[in-house]
């Protein structure tokens, strides 16, 4: 193998598994260390700069970082990264003086943002301080998009959302709420320099093909619309017996909301097997905790209606069968159909993009799924002035993806408005700093604690179920937060190897708790992986290979389960190993300067 090029900013970035997995690449270990140090405001600002909504995401993020967390590869549970983020938001001081406040000197460019969700708000935050005049349009009565209309208050209190949306609204942008945009052409005609579409995936799927569906108009609701109606106070009650169809996070929000609006017998009915449900495991767990049963492998067969009144639904029992390619099909088992009584049915079986308001003669190409064709890096559509982001761009994902896309769209818009090439993206900001603090001492807490993941306390169920606005998760207190933060392995503190200093004494090999390091003859990667001191079977994890040493061997380090404990560097007599903290930050529009 060729010696690893650690000058490539992506090499060490990839070692920080959580940050690499995060769509917005938030520097996770950096803020976790600040939380451990009690510097909540600083931790919050690192988040805010990267993901814009730390308080929201600390409660509702899909957490792609946690399955990636290295800790989960050496013990059972990853670090509770998401809930630590919330700690930063909960315990920070007033940070308003750290956040840029408008109005800013104008640069003469005008940008329209359609939709007021996380993607649009991110674009607004990135562009407003650069002097762009921002007009944000949304048909809801307040900003936040699906964060406001679809995430129930018992998971995300309105005050948290208001605060973080407020930081952006205070940047001197013009918000036009309660404003439905029915024509993109009309917006284009207003002469904006660029238009960003962040209208989400607002169309909830219904089940028109299920017999009986057309006979009932009342008592059957599409999940996301029902949730929005609850969020804005239009719906305050539901029947005692409720069926929720679907196994995603919207279904979880529907069933738990139904429990709070009077649903006593709330059932979740899902086509797929339990193990393949799309909802996040922790949301399923929370629903189960609220006495909501799951009926898996039940396919809706008919709505049972008597005299125009919904009585319930029948379901066919199926089993998941897999062909040789692993593709799943649901085959009826032949068991008798099941009937569930229901006063109300909530359909939460998916949502789609919907662009009836975009005229098809504006130069925006739509594909066969009726979604706009985009450049996946720049988020520019075939009409160069029109950019997309969030669920509206590449289909429904999650808040953190919307934020990440918003940042990139903002970079594109800034480049576009300055006449620069959209494909010459700014390099990430990186920094690599020694952590040495005297002989065998490090600035970071290198000791690896053995604590198991700490549980977040919940509000008492009895009380929680009576008030849909009462937040269920209470968050870590500072003491538990400290202990949870200490579980972080500091993967951003890199093991940097200096070939010319190595005397090949083997001290690092002997001391490494996880047998990461091998000195051996070089070879092709496939061959090298078989010759290391410990199996290196995870191909997604890189091998760090040095230049040839004096004995013509090379140092090979499998990054997979390195604990970043610093023992290799402590036991190295010549400081050939050094622990160096790597900071990687995605560059935002206008190349914001970093501390």
């Amino acid at each position, binding site marked *: 193998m060729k010696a690893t090029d650690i000058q490539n900013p992506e090499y060490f970035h990839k070692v920080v598994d959580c940050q690499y997995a995060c769509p917005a690449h938030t520097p996770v270990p950096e803020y976790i260390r600040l939380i451990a140090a009690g510097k909540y405001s600083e931790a919050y600002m690192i988040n805010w700069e990267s993901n814009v909504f730390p308080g929201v995401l600390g409660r509702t993020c899909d957490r792609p970082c946690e399955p990636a967390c290295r800790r989960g590869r050496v013990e059972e549970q990853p670090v509770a990264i998401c809930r630590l983020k919330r700690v930063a938001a909960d315990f920070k001081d007033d940070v308003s003086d750290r956040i840029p406040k408008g109005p800013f000197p104008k640069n003469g460019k005008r940008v329209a943002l359609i939709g007021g969700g996380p993607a649009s708000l991110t674009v607004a935050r990135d562009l407003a301080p650069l002097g762009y005049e921002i007009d944000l349009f949304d048909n809801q009565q307040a900003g936040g998009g699906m964060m406001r209309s679809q995430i129930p208050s018992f998971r995300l209190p309105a005050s948290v959302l208001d605060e973080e949306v407020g930081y952006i609204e205070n940047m001197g942008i013009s918000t036009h709420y309660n404003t439905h945009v029915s024509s993109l052409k009309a917006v284009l005609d207003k002469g904006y320099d660029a238009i960003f579409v962040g209208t989400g995936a607002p169309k909830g799927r219904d089940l028109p093909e299920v017999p009986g569906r057309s006979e009932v108009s009342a008592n059957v609701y599409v999940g996301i619309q029902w949730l929005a109606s609850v969020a804005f106070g239009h719906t305050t009650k539901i029947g005692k017996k409720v069926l929720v169809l679907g196994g995603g996070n919207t279904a979880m929000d529907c069933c738990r909301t139904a429990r709070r609006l009077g649903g006593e017998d709330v059932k979740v009915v899902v086509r797929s097997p339990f193990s393949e449900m799309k909802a996040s495991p922790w949301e399923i767990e929370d629903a189960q905790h609220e006495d909501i049963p799951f009926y898996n492998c039940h396919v809706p067969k008919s709505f049972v209606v008597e005299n125009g009144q919904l009585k319930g639904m029948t379901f066919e029992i199926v089993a998941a069968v897999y062909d040789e390619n692993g593709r799943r099909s649901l085959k009826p088992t032949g068991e008798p159909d099941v009937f569930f009584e229901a006063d109300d049915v909530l359909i939460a079986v998916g949502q789609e993009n919907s662009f009836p308001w975009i005229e098809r003669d504006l130069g925006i190409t739509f594909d066969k799924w009726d979604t706009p064709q985009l450049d996946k890096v720049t988020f520019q559509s075939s009409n160069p002035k029109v950019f997309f982001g969030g669920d509206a761009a590449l289909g429904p994902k999650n808040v953190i993806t919307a934020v990440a896309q918003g940042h990139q769209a903002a970079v594109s818009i800034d480049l576009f408005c300055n006449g620069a090439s959209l494909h010459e993206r700014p390099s990430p900001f990186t920094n690599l700093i020694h952590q040495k603090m005297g002989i065998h001492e490090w600035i970071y807490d290198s000791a690896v604690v053995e604590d198991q993941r700490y549980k977040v306390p919940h509000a008492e169920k009895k009380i929680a179920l009576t008030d849909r606005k009462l937040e269920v998760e209470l968050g870590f207190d500072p003491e538990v937060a400290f202990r949870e933060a200490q579980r972080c392995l500091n993967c951003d503190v890199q093991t940097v190897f200096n070939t010319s200093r190595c005397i090949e004494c083997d001290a690092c090999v002997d001391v490494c708790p*996880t047998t990461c390091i091998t000195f051996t003859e070089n070879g092709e990667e496939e061959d090298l992986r078989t010759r290391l001191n410990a199996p290196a079977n995870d191909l997604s994890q890189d091998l760090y290979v040095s230049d040839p040493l004096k004995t013509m061997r090379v140092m090979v380090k499998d990054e997979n389960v390195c604990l970043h404990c610093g023992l290799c560097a402590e036991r190295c*007599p010549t400081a050939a190993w050094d622990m160096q903290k790597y900071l990687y930050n995605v560059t935002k529009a206008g190349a914001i300067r970093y501390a």
Partner: protein
Amino acid sequence: MSFVKPKFRHPDLPLNEVGYSRADYEGVLSTLCAGCGHDSVSGAIVSACFEMNLEPHRVAKLSGIGCSSKTPAYFLSNSHGFNSVHGRMPSVATGANLANRDLMYLGISGDGDSASIGMGQFVHAIRRNLNITYILMNNGCYGLTKGQDSATADVGSVNKSGHANQFAAIDMAGLALEMGATFVARSFSGDKEQLVPLIKAAMSHPGFALIDVISPCVTFNNNPGSTKSYDYTREHIEATAAVDYVPFKEEITAAYAEGEVLDVALHDGSYIQLSKLAPNWNPFDRIGAINRVHEAKVKNEILTGLIFIDQDHPDLHQMLDTTATPLNQLPQALLIPGPEVLEAVNRAGR
């Protein structure tokens, strides 16, 4: 500075045939200097015991005084241990071995502990062919007292203070050959590929097995001019043969041209496979081995590998015709047969 090693281990590490992981053979975190050769020797012992499927409680590790003699704390935490008086490990080991011949004895010593204060003990243990693996961590200086020349320092070797040694060096492998040792090997802490199979072979050898391991003192004797530094050792190392230890269950799969490979069967059914590097070299020839050691010294070579082996010489238990049962398992009546038996024994001698 870290004093505790994290408990997490590589999740895919295999278990050996007796169900232990490599971690079960480890000790506490070393407090020796960073880069000390002794830590590599400890690592080699851990590897050897893991790979030999030894149950840790079947091993007793004994040591004297010195940096080397601290190392039993850093490996085999689940084994028996005795940190004895300076230079007196061989006699403690002799006593332990006579009392319980069922354990495997691992003696750890250094050049100060064995070549100076413990020289008398060292040679007598060899004479008696005590069944022990004697690992001598040889760095040519007294590391624990800040690097004075030891009795194994070569003439002219320069220590850290810039002083060149004037006194003749004791070659511990050569001495062991002279004293009739039945297994003599030399190795280098920085060459685990050689050291690990040698330790395994030594532990399988029924008798006194010396491994003289050049183990550089990174703090006091790793400077230019030293003949026990990492660089000097690497530049002057010569091997008698590439060593491979083959447990008895495995079949030989590697193909070698005739005359290049020599299989030395060990009494426990395993064998050492030696790929000869030097022509006409015969590991059963004591006089040849003595000559080869002297020759290497003249040529400024550090001769490593298995130098000599004689498995047929009886060990101390055989020579003394002792009971096969460890003393702690003998019934009281047999262990202390009483005054009548003593009287009979005395009478027979009159």
